């Protein structure tokens, strides 16, 4: 739904044809900038004003970088005037506050890093905003779950983020600020990260399109580590086409990340228009078993019928070990987190407790004060499963089950081109309804975790609504098949208009 004309405006008036800039696609924004319909400064100012007006109701930004944004916009306008602009030059973007931004606070939504001003840029920040990069304008840093640990954006030290579709509900997590900002028209797109579903589940809960590429496709340099064998950066946007433009600019080999893959990036935008006739789509029966809400099931199955009518071939498959993905993840991810987060010691950067007499006390009190409850729980679970006497039973066993989950996908992709299922078990839940029960919270990610364990690309897009709240459809692809995922999502979006719905109150 486009924001309609204001009261007293009649059809035929010039204002009737006016489309607010925040409803335009990235492609249309690029054309508007190149044809001088508006400047990057005007566009940036428009978004900054919207943030000022609407963000108090959402809390989607931790830091708004208005001054730097306008300076970047002016630089982009100069590039545009000189005819040196790329497809993204001058278009605003929000960064999840997990990516290091030189000279700008990078908090990871933790008290531990509340005072941390990054001394360098993450590779993707350079690629998107740097002098030799895509020329996008950074609006600010988005709220998130603390250290990306959470599925509701309620663990942030800066307070919870609200879902624009119903501000009494969560936006999902951990990339809750990124999705709330984009869904409410406070950024055209945003970066996000996904360790167990943190791009896809929030995208599903806010009617957005979010993609987590193959592990190793996007550099992790300068992205604050949670679980290094699972973490991957991606993007949330309103459409697959918008996501393709941004992901194209973020992807690629980076010598500064030892797990970055040396392999050319496919033409993601160019691949969107391929027909999907004859494509084989697998529906894993485990993803439609008990636990999936009826309304969500109906919407996902309607999307399956839509894809079938467009020429896709639908086959039932089995991923027999997928019920073990949540327990596997809650050994592997905390184990890696407990090791990664040992760097926060109150000595080199971050929070340091006061009035300390011994080094041990310095560590313990700085960490006890600086980390929130969910982060402390995961550090302790990780410490426990790695400790002497429990390592084989938990950590080694989890790594073996991870191999079984990986083998399930390898087998599936011998007979299908992609795998389809729901993204989440249900629509967005109410704020505070799961905060006291970590296990209930963890089960939110039951359909998303397997893709991280296997390292395959996966995405979520909207496939309808239940009682006015969005439902997400998940597509999982073979290694490095991002172009195919975006292609199928784009074709589905050409045939449906779910993704064009905007939340009321944020027109």
């Amino acid at each position, binding site marked *: 739904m486009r924001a309609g004309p204001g009261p007293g405006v009649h059809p035929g008036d010039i204002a009737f044809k006016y489309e607010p800039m925040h409803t335009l696609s990235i492609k249309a924004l690029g054309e508007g900038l190149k044809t001088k319909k508006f400047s990057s400064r005007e566009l940036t100012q428009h978004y900054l004003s919207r943030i000022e007006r609407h963000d108090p109701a959402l809390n989607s930004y931790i830091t708004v970088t208005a001054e730097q944004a306008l300076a970047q916009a002016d630089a982009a306008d100069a590039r545009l005037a000189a005819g040196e602009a790329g497809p993204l030059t001058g278009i605003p973007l929000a960064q999840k506050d997990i990516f290091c931004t030189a000279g700008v606070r990078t908090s990871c939504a933790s008290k531990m890093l509340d*005072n941390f001003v990054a*001394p*360098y840029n993450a590779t993707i920040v350079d690629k998107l905003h740097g002098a030799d990069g895509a020329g996008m304008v950074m609006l600010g840093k988005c709220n998130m779950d603390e250290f990306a640990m959470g599925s509701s954006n309620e663990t942030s030290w800066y307070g919870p983020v609200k879902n624009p579709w119903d501000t009494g509900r969560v936006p999902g997590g951990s990339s809750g600020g990124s999705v709330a900002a984009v869904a409410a028209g406070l950024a055209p797109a945003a970066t996000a990260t996904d360790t167990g579903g943190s791009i896809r589940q929030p995208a599903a809960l806010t009617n957005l399109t979010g993609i987590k590429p193959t*592990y*190793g496709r996007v550099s992790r340099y300068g992205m604050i580590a949670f679980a290094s*064998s*699972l973490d991957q950066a991606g993007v949330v946007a309103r459409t697959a086409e918008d996501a393709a433009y941004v992901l194209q600019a973020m992807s690629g080999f980076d*010598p500064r990340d*030892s*797990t970055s*893959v040396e392999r050319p990036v496919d033409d993601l935008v160019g691949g969107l228009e391929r027909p999907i006739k004859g494509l084989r789509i697998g529906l894993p029966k485990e993803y439609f078993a008990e636990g999936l809400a009826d309304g969500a099931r109906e919407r996902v199955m309607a999307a399956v019928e839509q894809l079938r009518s467009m020429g896709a071939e639908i086959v039932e498959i089995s991923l027999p*070990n997928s*019920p*073990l993905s949540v*327990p596997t993840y*809650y*050994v592997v991810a905390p184990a890696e987190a*407990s090791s990664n987060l*040992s760097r926060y010691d*109150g*000595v*080199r*950067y971050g929070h*340091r407790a006061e009035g*300390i*007499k011994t*080094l041990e*006390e*310095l*560590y*313990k009190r700085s*960490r*006890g004060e600086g*980390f929130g409850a969910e982060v*402390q*729980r995961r*550090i*302790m*679970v990780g410490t*426990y*499963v790695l*400790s002497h006497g429990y390592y084989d*039973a*938990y950590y080694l*066993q*989890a*790594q*073996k*089950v*991870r*191999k*079984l989950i*990986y083998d399930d996908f390898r087998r599936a992709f011998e007979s299908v081109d992609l795998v389809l299922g729901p993204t989440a078990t249900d629509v967005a839940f109410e704020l505070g309804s799961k905060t006291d029960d*970590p*296990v209930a919270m*963890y089960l939110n990610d039951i359909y998303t975790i397997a893709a991280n*364990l*296997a*390292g395959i690309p996966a995405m979520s897009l909207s496939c309808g609504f239940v009682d006015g709240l969005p439902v997400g459809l998940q597509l999982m692809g073979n*290694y490095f098949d991002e172009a195919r995922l975006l292609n199928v999502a784009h074709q589905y979006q050409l045939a449906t208009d779910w993704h064009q719905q905007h939340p009321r109150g944020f027109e």
Partner: protein
Amino acid sequence: MSLTIEQLKQVAHLARLEMTPDQADHYTQQLSSILDLVDQLQQAKTDQVEPMAHPLEMSQRLRPDTVTETNQRDVFQSVAPSVEDGLYVVPKVIE
């Protein structure tokens, strides 16, 4: 499996986390329910399975052993809570 409060305190010590007795009580219950969840892993038959540490079959890249980074000590120490003469300051460790 359920955790005792003594085990919880030992884990918190290993992880260098200070907490109040109330917090320790609360964490003991919550960690026990998380460990119950992960105990499902014991059902899986994994005798012949190779553990998988990493999603991609790749080996670590090597690079020539030459200096590529410049010294940025001042920049990095600008975010440190306490430094003196280029050194990080901590409470006295050796008497």
